[in-house]
């Protein structure tokens, strides 16, 4: 009996929403064993599931613990499927470097934004936490990223976000990157003050903001 791939991808998506990492792994392995397209499974299975989880989060049906477990399942599936993506198949995605600014190690918010941006079609280079301002710029240049996404939960470390922008200005490359900032103490007022391109109040808003900036700069979202 041939495998109904739509059914399988739906099961894969459901395993994410159901927070069943073991099932996600099992189905991901089945995708490979059946010779199905890994990228297809990521887009129509894992990403769909994570999007549904994100929607439940927006609707206050799921909260941070549930979303984290869903994302663990998603990453477990990605670990299995990604190595099997055919060369040339991976659609060029817009790249973003993301991290928590120097001096701060609170990263749940950053991780949620990363999940949402990845689910939203962005290729994310995660710099982790306690990241030097210069590292944001170096990595953005190295990875040819379009976005620099910076998070902090502390007012004492906010100035580091300004330093990232100052470095970009000093190197005369400010216009090459869109700088998005977020975190508990951050506000639109602060974003305007330091010249950031955008401020996102939460993870879901971060994706919408990134998409709006892409459109505003004259490119279509693929």
């Amino acid at each position, binding site marked *: 009996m041939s495998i109904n791939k739509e059914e399988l991808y739906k099961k894969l998506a459901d395993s994410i929403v159901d927070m069943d990492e073991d099932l996600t792994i099992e189905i991901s392995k089945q995708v490979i064993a059946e010779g199905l397209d890994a990228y297809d499974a990521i887009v129509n299975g894992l990403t769909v599931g994570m999007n549904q989880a994100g929607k439940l989060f927006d609707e206050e049906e799921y909260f941070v*613990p549930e979303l984290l477990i869903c994302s663990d399942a998603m990453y477990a599936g990605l670990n299995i499927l990604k190595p099997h993506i055919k060369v040339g198949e991976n659609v060029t995605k817009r790249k973003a470097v993301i991290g928590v600014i120097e001096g701060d190690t609170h*990263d749940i918010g950053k991780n949620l934004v990363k999940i949402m941006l990845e689910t939203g079609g962005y290729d994310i280079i995660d710099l982790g936490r306690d990241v030097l301002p210069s590292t944001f710029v170096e990595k953005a240049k190295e990875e040819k990223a379009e976005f620099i996404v910076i998070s902090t939960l502390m007012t004492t470390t906010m100035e580091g976000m300004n330093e990232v922008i100052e470095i970009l200005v000093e190197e005369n490359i400010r216009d090459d990157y869109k700088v998005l900032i977020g975190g508990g103490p951050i506000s639109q007022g602060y974003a305007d003050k330091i010249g950031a391109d955008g401020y996102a109040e939460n993870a879901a808003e971060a994706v919408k903001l990134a998409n709006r900036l892409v459109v505003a700069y004259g490119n279509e979202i693929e």
Partner: protein
Amino acid sequence: MSLIQRNEELTSLERVGLTLQRKEVDRTPAIPLVCGASYRVLGTRYDKWSQDAEIATQSLLAAQELIGQDAFLLLVDLSVEAADFGQKLIFPKYSTAFPDFNNQYIQTPNEYEKIKKVNPRETKRMKQVIDMIKGLSKEKGNEVAIMGFIYGPLGVLSQIRGHKDLFVDLIKHPEEVLAAVDVITDVLVEYAIAQVEAGAHAVVVDPLYSSGTILRNTTWEKFEGPYLKRIADAIRTAGAGVGIHNCGDGVYFEEVIKWADPVAISVAYPAHGSKNWEEHAKTWGDKVITIGCSDPANTGLVFTTDEVLEDCKNQIELFKKHNAGFILSTGCEFPPNGNLLNAAAMVEASRRYGRTEN
């Protein structure tokens, strides 16, 4: 007498106390939460301020002289209790101390039983806070309200386990988490009593995860509600008032009031279910005193002094319009590196716009 304070009709302590009893006062109390920011007044360093009771006490006293706020809040950082349970911390020279997240004291769900009872009066950091309260009480206990501070038991545990791992454990290892929260609560009860005995007029507890952006309300209730009640009951039995602080978005006012029955709740955002501050004031104004709600980052790092005055005026007028209990404050700690003149402006706003006859 403060350089900035003038001869008032009431002392700060009287003003805060009467406001909490919903009795008539001369003006709206103003309590910008100048805690760590006080390190800059006497020219010390943040890491020294965080670890020395005498330096911190003198800094807080000096800051209050300069700014004139009506209460001290003994929020040193959110890692005070965690350190005394065994969590290693990092103390930056000019920023807030935080757990060494590469060296969590609890690394697996099997290690929750490493949490053991300690006597807060004999620890390093909790004793420091108790000593700070003693010092402040001796100098200003008859004039300025002293609000102790305790991080809620679930928050303390998150500093020791790591936030992400704790949140996952709430679902995957709930019994282990509950056992640890129970032990931590016993210690926090003693810590609260010690703060009151040292001279705190009220103790503020911070159940940070009682917020719609973090946990489902029933999840929060399961893991912190009854434990918060134990701490709150102990504070009242010791003779002090109970306050709550939570700078998260969408705090579950109904649930927090159910378990803690506080006289006041300090917040940065409207309560869960309230679309804006007006709705918040209408819904909660007669049930609990709101301590808020200046945005700390904007107030300390973005606004001009005039903008602070205007922002505070709007808040005072809004809560007055709805006859809602209100104390003017920042929604969270005043930025340690923020403009202290803006903290003073908040107190000035209370004098200009918060008079009872206005």
